[in-house]
């Protein structure tokens, strides 16, 4: 098909494509791939897959393994998607693990003590999560305190509340099987439902970030808050909404875990806030905000799951998990800040260097012919 001819190569300037040699095409395709924030996590994913397959050739490339990886990736990934949006918007949320714990508790109590059906208890827990996020957002916006400090405080508060309410003991409940199946039950081919939720939320948030006004505002907020404000972007509202989305996603992960474990305990979700930051960074989102990718985070979460499962299968002691994760996070940051920045400044390879053909056509039509400028007239002065 003619439409597919330009696949892989950008379709912006047709004549240039004809001139370009195969080498230039590959080079340009590589350059454009490296420009993407997802390139680091995709590379990490491919390399780790190869390494683990080499280390345990019988056990690793196996459907059961993939199912375990996705089970780990989905719950962490859903939390990380929210954290990614928030970090692109230029904020941090340390409280998201505690929000996950507290909303799990809310969900369990609504199911067990209030006797509510899961169809109400689940969304109610997510709504509570959004409210907790709104508290974070309002504190950040209202008092102009750095979100790192605000959410450090709320993390401690909400974790304390969970510990107090549970008394430190796990609470178990009977979960209706329909609820367990829709949230985290085995699906066709044995993959868990949580994977579907993970991919659906990943797709939704990718769309939100790339193709909506809110997404544009989130990126602008993270890059140049003052410019965004001057141009009429409701920066404060964007911040509050971001915190609400993050906590709501944390709550969704919490509800999934309630369905999977049929219980809640005092330490549910602990440490997840930092794992989510690690996943986000592996996924190519800048720590300084403004730039990132939800798809990268989805890949980062799968990378994370792969490390966790792969090390066990390779017979490596469990504590190596943290060490290796740490190395990968640092490597990802180095790649993202040095390579990506250099690539961002790179010029298209020869043959792709033309301007936008539509612009040229429009310009030719209007035929702007400015008189020669007298540059000397503006020289000097201070």
């Amino acid at each position: 098909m003619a439409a597919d001819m330009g696949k892989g190569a950008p379709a912006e300037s047709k004549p240039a494509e004809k001139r370009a040699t195969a080498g230039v095409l590959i080079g340009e395709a590589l350059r454009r791939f490296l420009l993407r924030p997802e390139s680091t996590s995709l590379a990490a994913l491919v390399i780790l897959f190869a390494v683990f397959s080499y280390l345990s050739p019988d056990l690793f490339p196996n459907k059961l393994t993939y199912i375990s990886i996705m089970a780990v990736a989905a719950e962490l990934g859903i939390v990380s998607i929210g954290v990614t949006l928030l970090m692109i918007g230029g904020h941090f949320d340390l409280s998201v693990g505690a929000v996950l714990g507290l909303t799990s508790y809310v969900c369990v109590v609504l199911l067990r003590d209030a006797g509510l059906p899961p169809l109400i208890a689940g969304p109610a827990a997510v709504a509570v999560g959004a409210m907790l996020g709104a508290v974070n957002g309002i504190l950040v916006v209202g008092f102009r305190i750095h979100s790192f400090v605000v959410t450090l405080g709320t993390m401690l508060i909400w974790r304390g509340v969970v510990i107090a309410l549970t008394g430190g003991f796990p609470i178990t409940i009977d979960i209706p099987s329909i609820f367990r199946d829709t949230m985290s039950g085995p699906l066709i081919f044995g993959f868990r439902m949580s994977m579907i939720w993970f991919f659906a939320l990943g797709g939704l948030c990718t769309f939100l970030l790339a193709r909506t006004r809110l997404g544009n505002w989130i990126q602008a907020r993270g890059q140049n808050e003052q410019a965004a404000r001057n141009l009429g972007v409701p920066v404060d509202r964007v911040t509050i909404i971001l915190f609400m989305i993050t906590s709501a996603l944390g709550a969704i992960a919490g509800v999934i875990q309630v369905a999977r474990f049929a219980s809640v305990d005092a330490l549910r979700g602990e440490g997840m806030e930092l794992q989510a930051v690690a996943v986000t960074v592996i996924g190519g989102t800048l720590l300084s905000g403004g730039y990132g990718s939800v798809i990268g985070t989805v890949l980062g979460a799968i990378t994370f799951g792969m490390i966790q499962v792969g090390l066990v299968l390779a017979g490596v002691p469990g504590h190596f998990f943290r060490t290796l994760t740490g190395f990968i996070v640092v490597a990802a940051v180095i790649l993202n800040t040095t390579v990506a920045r250099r690539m961002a400044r790179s010029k298209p390879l020869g043959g792709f260097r033309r301007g936008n053909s539509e612009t040229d056509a429009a310009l030719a039509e209007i035929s702007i012919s400015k008189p020669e400028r007298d540059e000397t007239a503006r020289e000097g002065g201070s």
Partner: protein
Amino acid sequence: MSTVSGTSGSPRSPTGDGGAKPGESQTRPRKIQPIAQDAVPVIEARNISKAFGATTALVDVSLKAYAGRVLALLGDNGAGKSTLIKILSGVFPPDDGELLFKGRPVVFANPAAAREHGIATVFQDLAVCELLSVTRNVILGREPTKGFGPFRWLDMKRADEMARTALLQLGVRWERGLEERGINISGGERQSLAIARAMYFGSSLLVLDEPTSALAVRQAGRVLDHIEHARDQGQAVILITHNFRHALSVADDLTVLAQGRVAAHFRRDEIELEELTELVARVG
């Protein structure tokens, strides 16, 4: 040869005018029209005063900006230029005095209120988001959307069109693609982008804060072209600058601020570079 606008503001002579009339001092000769008797200023500041604690920033300052004219606001650091434009663009209100928009008194509660009146301010270095594309930078805050009800998404095709039109209206030849990120465009191009954006979204008053200060000669020249272009399209322009040559080359009127007061006000053809330099040195 035709300019884009061609209605007023004859182009500067390409040969340089060092050898022109002695009094003209490297700026082109230009006929400055007197302000029409019945013209209503787009924005008028009447006896504006502003203090920050014990520091007096502005005392009894009045100025008028008319459609189709460039008002240059000159003065040393601390003369009150920034305070004045922040009042005009709604960042904070004056302590005393009033603002009139097209003859009617107005109070701007915030920058958004000023913008709704068509007052577009391009601040010195806060114009561009570095990692957003040119298109996204142009449409930021005014994104076109499509969809239905609450389900709306960006209309990127329309957005590209808007960005292209905005730049073309300013006569900017954008050689590269509109997907180019802010980080890759020069200081001059950033100013072009910011001015194009301000004009495209229908400003009636364009306030430019030191648009040429960080630019190379050629780029500064292009920004001055944009200012003339905006003026020729009937906008009122207030240009804040340190650079007397730049001010003299595009302004129709000049106001010199010193220590928070209006030290002098001229029509362009009433003053030359030497006098202006001397005056500012004396009052500043």
